[in-house]
């Protein structure tokens, strides 16, 4: 029987809502629901067991017997047991409900309960009060209870959490044996825990079902892996290299000050008399239609535009055209754009691509220090690409290249990070990957971000100054 969620919006409490979920689960499918902490993945799974209050949309086809295991369900049961204590206060010391009673619900398979208790090595605990069990023990009991309840659907939220290796293997094997008979929905956080029998993955982000990926779609599966990695790992943006430190800037001075600048090609003026000041710590979003001169404007700042020598430009303490070199300017800037990606068509290994950010070069021409290599490896770990350090850059997927170039731009912790349409040309999954990485950077560093973008859905938290260019 098919379970259908059509445009379903579900309220959990004032604080959390699942929005507009469209999802269809077939009898012969086994799903993993995944996402970052707080994304709503547990909530989505719990909806299948009747949790939450449906605000709008339809939920159809949920079978009568759903075996649910989750921290919430476990906490509820324990809370209920403790309440019984209160109720029985009197003068006898309440023992609480014994495990056996908890496990054997109406309709349960008693023989299976015994078999599983045996398998989990919990026989000795059968007569113990449920509320006296350790968290791990009560967790296992919850699993047994659900498995033995002869369910039509199993919803297991982080069933492998806290299990020792032997028990984990046993449980996985047991679940695998159910594949033909019971559809399963597992909430899992880590890719390496996804059992082989899983056929589909649902990725939840901010209360929405953001992606549904079939296991056999290898490309989408690999991208989902990285996304989950970025969203869920505790990794921090790697520190800068103290040995290749960027000279200190005067904090009272703007990073960039453009005075009445013009960009002209022949007789056409693309940008006319523009003033713009970027103060440290003030993130900017730059937008405007194609041809409005966004890229030209940026390249005046980076020093890549020849007309930077005929304009009144002050960057990082230098008045342009006063004898400074572009490398003195570029050392303060991290830069990512599609055209950089085109130009960066090199066969250099991924680690070296990141290290080249220390030298602002395309390709690496200087022997890297051990420290730089370590930092590059930390970035690769952040991106979930540690095993691929020596793969050639030009063999990477388009989205992976973009991620790597962002890491390259950030590796030296530049005072100014320029992201020129970093999501351009990326599919949905890769866009989210890139945005996740940028948000991590914005949150973890002192870099001022200048973000070129004109898609409202690609907003980045924390950017609140806007410059909009018009087409002339």
């Amino acid at each position, binding site marked *: 029987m098919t379970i259908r969620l059509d445009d379903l919006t579900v309220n959990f409490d004032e604080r959390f809502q699942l929005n507009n979920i469209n999802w269809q689960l077939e009898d012969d499918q086994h799903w993993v629901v995944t996402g970052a902490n707080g994304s709503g993945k547990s909530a989505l799974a719990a909806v299948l067991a009747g949790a939450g209050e449906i605000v709008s949309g339809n939920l159809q086809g949920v079978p009568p017997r759903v075996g649910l295991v989750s921290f919430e369900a476990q906490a509820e049961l324990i809370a209920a047991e403790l309440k019984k204590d209160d109720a029985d206060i009197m003068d006898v010391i309440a023992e609480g409900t014994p495990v056996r009673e908890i496990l054997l619900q109406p309709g349960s398979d008693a023989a299976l309960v015994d078999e599983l208790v045996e398998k989990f090595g919990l026989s000795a605990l059968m007569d113990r009060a449920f509320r006296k069990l350790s968290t791990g023990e009560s967790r296992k009991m919850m699993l047994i209870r659900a498995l033995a309840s002869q369910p039509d659907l199993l919803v297991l939220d982080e069933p492998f959490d806290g299990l020792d290796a032997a028990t984990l293997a046993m449980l996985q094997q047991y679940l695998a044996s159910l594949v033909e008979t019971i559809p399963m929905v597992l909430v899992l956080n880590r890719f390496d825990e996804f059992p082989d029998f899983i056929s589909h993955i649902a990725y939840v982000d901010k209360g929405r079902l953001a992606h549904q990926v079939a296991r056999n779609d290898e490309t989408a599966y690999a991208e989902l892996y990285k996304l989950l990695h970025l969203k869920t790992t505790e990794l921090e943006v790697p520190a800068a290299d103290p040995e290749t430190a960027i000279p200190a800037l005067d904090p009272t001075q703007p990073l960039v000050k453009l005075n009445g600048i013009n960009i002209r090609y022949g007789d056409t003026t693309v940008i006319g008399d523009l003033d713009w000041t970027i103060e440290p710590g003030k993130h900017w979003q730059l937008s405007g239609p194609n041809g409005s001169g966004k890229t030209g404007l940026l390249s005046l700042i980076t020093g890549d535009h020849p007309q930077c*020598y005929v304009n009144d430009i002050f960057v990082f303490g230098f008045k342009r055209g006063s004898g400074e070199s*572009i490398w003195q300017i570029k050392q303060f800037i991290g830069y990512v754009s599609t055209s950089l990606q085109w130009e960066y068509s090199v066969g250099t290994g991924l680690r070296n691509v990141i290290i080249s950010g220390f030298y602002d070069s*395309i390709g690496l*021409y200087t022997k890297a220090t051990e420290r730089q290599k370590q930092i590059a490896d930390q970035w690769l770990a952040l991106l979930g690409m540690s095993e691929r350090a020596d793969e050639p850059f030009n063999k990477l997927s388009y989205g992976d290249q973009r991620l790597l170039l962002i890491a390259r731009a950030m590796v030296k912790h530049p005072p100014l990070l320029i992201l020129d349409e970093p999501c351009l040309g990326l599919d949905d999954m890769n866009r989210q990957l890139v945005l996740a990485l940028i948000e991590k950077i914005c949150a973890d560093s002192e870099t001022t971000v200048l973000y070129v973008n004109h898609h409202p859905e690609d907003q980045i938290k924390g950017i609140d100054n806007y410059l909009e260019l018009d087409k002339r």
Partner: protein
Amino acid sequence: MSNNYFNTLPLREQLEQLGKCRFMTMDEFDDGVEALKGKKMVVIGCGAQGLAQGMNLRDSGCDVSYALREAAIAEKRQSWKNATENGFVVGTYEELIPTADVVLNLTPDKQHTPVVNAVMPLMKEGACLSYSHGFNIVEEGMKIRDDLTVIMVAPKCPGSEVRNEYVRGFGVPTLIAVHEDNDPKGEGLALAKAYAVGTGGHKAGVLMSSFIAEVKSDLMGEQTILCGMLQTGSLLCFDKMVEEGIEPGYASKLIQYGWETITEALKYGGVTNMLDRLSNPAKIKAFDLAEELKQIMRPLYNKHQDDIIDGTFSRVMMEDWANDDKNLLGWRAETAETAFEKTPAGDVEISEQEYFDKGILMVAMVKAGVELAFETMTAAGIIADSAYYESLHETPLIANTIARKKLYEMNATISDTAEYGCYLYNHACLPLLADFMKDIKTDVIGKGLELEDTGVDNARLIEVNAALRAHPVEAIGATLRGHMADMKKIV
């Protein structure tokens, strides 16, 4: 009339100048562009080198402007557009030269005498005149005012590469020299080094050489292996394939893109690597053909080097200049009429490996040409480092131009001097190889060996591999490519 400077020197000095070449270490460039700080650099001409070098120097913090001839400014020629659109100050000789501390002569070599004669009187006392090729000084014997410093900074790449590599954060290998007769203040070397830093050349390797070594090796390389051999090879291989019944479109494509593909292997690991791309039997075949070719062509390479050294080449070419380039233009037209030029590349798929497998003769020609040019140059007293840059290193760069638009593009990109020398070589080499070509069949050009069994004799293979690796161009190549670090990865 001109007066060959080299020929005025005693033998002792000739040998000393030819043998001048030292690979400079990175720390010799620690002063960066300091020696040029606060100095005004005025570039004459804004063509391939002029624009690229000027942009690099400006991005390195130097003060750069352009002096163009009046007609170029009045007619808003390409050179004027190049300079103004990139935000440079442009002016006439009269306006800019008197203010210049360094004048960069980046006009075509053929124009150097009139250009230098026009600007020299305008230059201020004690200023510096720089070249990117020493022809004017060495072959024409141009006398520069005694108070002026004369230097050379010669990037060993076309202008587009000079700029692109700089933007990537790298540079191109560069040769610098000071004209010792004109170094009154002893500041020539400091200026040349700073200039090389300004163009980014120091990152890719700088050879400290002499005007004479630069000219005599540059001319030799360009007219033999770089342009001449590729032109002759293209014509011979194409005609042979067509004669043997290979579809002309295929033959045309195999050659047009073949040079680029097979010489790409040189960048990574020299001649050895290029031959390693072949199967064992094909490698042995290519080796044997190259040995034969070297034997036949050696006298021709010697003659080219001799004519360059004793000035015959430049004298004859300058006679043609004086004769309104009659020969040059005639030969150019003749090249355009060859069957190879006129047959467009067919719409066929050729895989990268196929270019090697079916172009064994082309591989042999490149090997023979590179080794002969290198051997002849070093025998004439030119140091191995120089000889490497002027032969093996530049071969893939020239091959790229053929891939773009065949011989036409190659001859349009290279200097008139190189083009003239290329035709001379071609005219001598075609008949020289006529007998050799009679025995050539499609197994080495067009079809490949098509063997069932690719077995070879062990002893013979070991012998061939050892000989390949033992050639002196391989040892110096490995060292110099090592200096260029990741260069191989990015080109």
